[in-house]
């Protein structure tokens, strides 16, 4: 690879050389794909519910402000506090204020991509609050000082052998590479933290506007402890996650776990309705909901509107041929995979994904897997188009496409192109194929033969064919 290769291409190529990563990815994504297929195979209503879910999301977006107002009213009515964060920085400030005011020193966290998005852990540490991730995958990557590489399976890039080595190094615990044993150790370590923590931080899969209910879909039971053991609970949620009613929620719960892990339902579905009320046995004394915009609201009328329907299930990652080869870290941002490119553009702007928008063969497997059928390829093409119009594409690329466009827009030039190509390819062609070409064409020929332009194109042969008819 030349030194001028884009940073993304370099990271991707690095990932391709990591044998552990590729083994871990192949095993995990194949398993997810099979489980998802089985889950929907056993569930004939699935198709209709996906369509319904898509419509609910679309209808909710049309009146998002009203549903958010309703949600805020209902959470406050139940004694919770609602905060609105325009930016990631606002969200961090709001949460740090809560931590400071309540004197929190130790925060336990349930898995949340929204808190990854706002880089909350770094901010907490800086403010003297120790965050502890309690989802097993998140716990592993926190120990490894890494970032999640998948939306629902943050440590998908690690093999069990690597996790055992990590535990030995970081916890001083010698342990076999056995998932059950590794989980038992993590559970023991985390139990103490749950009991000591004064702050519980979660994300939210949904929030029901008509009841003020924040919904968490989890599998390990840690989410329930984070929301009930510490004195204060803060939930961070993208504004687009609001759903109108409990009936709507049921539609999403019926398809979310099937799409994500292939389970009929997740092990735990936690409904949080404000702080603990007199007579209730569990729940935090103080409950805060942080509504996060961070580029979302602008997209209601933007190119990426459809991406606001995303449930963060990760199904598109599992089926994406690119993600399956390179994993999540190579993308370089919080959200990886096909949907991650769109979310990155949403948060950081279109020019930020000038290379990432091309990290897709546009094969459409993501659309097929998406529970709400988000047309990801269409929006990737749209992002590419906007970047062409902004002229952020490299000058040589724009020149190549300009020439191509001229050639293809004129049948006369196109006809002249074939003999010219035959002349130019003469030093390189053998037996109708080309094994080496200079410049960007070499990117093709390094791993594949290229067919030579035929001695006579179809257009050139047509006159003979026509007369024989």
């Amino acid at each position: 690879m030349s030194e001028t290769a884009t940073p993304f291409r370099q990271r991707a190529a690095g990932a391709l050389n990591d044998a552990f990563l590729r083994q871990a990815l192949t095993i995990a994504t194949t398993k997810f794909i099979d489980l998802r297929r089985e889950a929907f195979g056993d569930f004939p209503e699935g198709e209709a519910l996906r369509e319904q879910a898509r419509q609910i999301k679309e209808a909710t977006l049309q009146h998002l402000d009203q549903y958010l107002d309703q949600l805020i009213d209902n959470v406050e009515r139940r004694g919770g506090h609602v905060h609105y964060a325009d930016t990631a920085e606002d969200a961090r400030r709001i949460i740090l204020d809560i931590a400071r005011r309540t004197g929190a020193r130790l925060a336990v966290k349930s898995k949340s991509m929204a808190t990854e998005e706002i880089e909350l852990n770094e901010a907490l540490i800086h403010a003297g609050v120790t965050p502890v991730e309690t989802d097993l995958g998140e716990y592993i990557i926190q120990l490894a000082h890494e970032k999640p590489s998948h939306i629902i399976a943050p440590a998908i890039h690690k093999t069990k052998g690597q996790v055992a080595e990590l535990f030995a190094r970081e916890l001083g615990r010698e342990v076999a590479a056995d998932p059950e044993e590794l989980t038992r150790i993590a559970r023991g370590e985390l139990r103490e933290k749950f009991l000591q923590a004064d702050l519980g931080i979660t994300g939210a899969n949904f929030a029901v506007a008509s009841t003020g209910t924040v919904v968490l879909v989890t599998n390990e039971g840690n989410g329930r402890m984070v929301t009930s053991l510490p004195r204060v609970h803060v939930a961070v949620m993208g504004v687009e996650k609001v759903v109108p009613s409990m009936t709507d929620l049921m539609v999403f719960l019926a398809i979310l776990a099937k799409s994500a892990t292939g389970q009929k339902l997740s092990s735990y579905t936690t409904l949080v309705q404000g702080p603990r009320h007199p007579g209730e046995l569990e729940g935090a004394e103080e409950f805060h909901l942080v509504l996060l915009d961070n580029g979302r609201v602008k997209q209601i009328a933007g190119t990426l509107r459809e991406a606001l329907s995303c449930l963060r299930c990760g199904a598109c990652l599992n089926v994406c041929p690119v993600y399956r080869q390179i994993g999540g870290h190579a993308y370089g941002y919080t959200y990886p995979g096909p949907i991650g490119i769109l979310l990155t553009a949403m948060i950081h702007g279109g020019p930020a994904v000038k290379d990432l928008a091309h990290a897709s063969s546009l094969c459409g497997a993501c659309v097929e897997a998406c529970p709400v059928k988000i047309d990801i390829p269409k929006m990737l093409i749209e992002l590419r188009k906007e970047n062409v119009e902004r002229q952020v594409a490299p000058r040589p690329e724009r020149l190549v496409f300009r020439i191509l466009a001229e050639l293809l827009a004129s049948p006369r030039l196109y006809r002249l192109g074939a003999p010219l190509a035959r002349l130019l390819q003469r030093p390189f062609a053998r037996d109708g194929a080309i094994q080496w070409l200079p410049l960007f064409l070499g990117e093709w020929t390094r791993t594949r033969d290229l067919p030579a332009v035929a001695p006579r194109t179809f257009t050139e042969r047509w006159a003979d064919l026509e007369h024989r008819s």
Partner: protein
Amino acid sequence: MTVSVRASLMITCLGDLFYPEVGVKIVRLLRGLGVAVDFPEGQTCCALPLFNSGYHAEAAAIARRTVPLFRDSEYVIVPSGSCAWMVKHEYLGLLTDPALRAQAKALAARTYELSQFLVKVVGRTRFRSAMAGRVTYHDSCHLLRGLGESESPRTILRNLEGADFVELGGSDECCGFGGSFAVRLPEVSASILDKKLANVEATGARCVAACDAGCLMQMGGGLRRRRSPVRAVHLAELLEAGES
């Protein structure tokens, strides 16, 4: 069996430049079935490469030129699923002139990928095989997920006299071509291709058929580079022109 149908061949740029023998084969095949084939002059490319890379003004210029070429066609046959997708699904959005838009709509409705045309329009599903032995089939992404077509090519292959059709593991997974993707991220593209070709070789087939020139370039180029005895062929190359 003969049918009286008129059809125009949209050869596509890759078909024209790299696989003219496939085009010739298709013309003979169709004539053998009683289809009157013409080849409207002035064709270049469907504009998908420009469109997918975000050069939409440039793609629109080509769409404006291409649509009128097929104004009088009864049917338009495209031997490539992705190009058929472009014509059927993206042209309309690129055009603003009302008259051209009406033509583009009509063109979309009359355009068929080759296997679809054979099965759904001509109604012919039985052919003698031009090649003996085991064959397998790769679903091109745009034909499968774009046009929703998986059955027409399989119907033909299952009924292919003298050949033994086997399903390809992961046949619905991308081959890694993706147009400019193949040269923008060549390492990733090649890695996806490796997996595809390992699946192809595991079938023990002599050839892998596809209905898209892009997939054929990618798979054929990879097979040739690794000096594999397996060939990547267009579905049409497997079909004998005569009566079955």
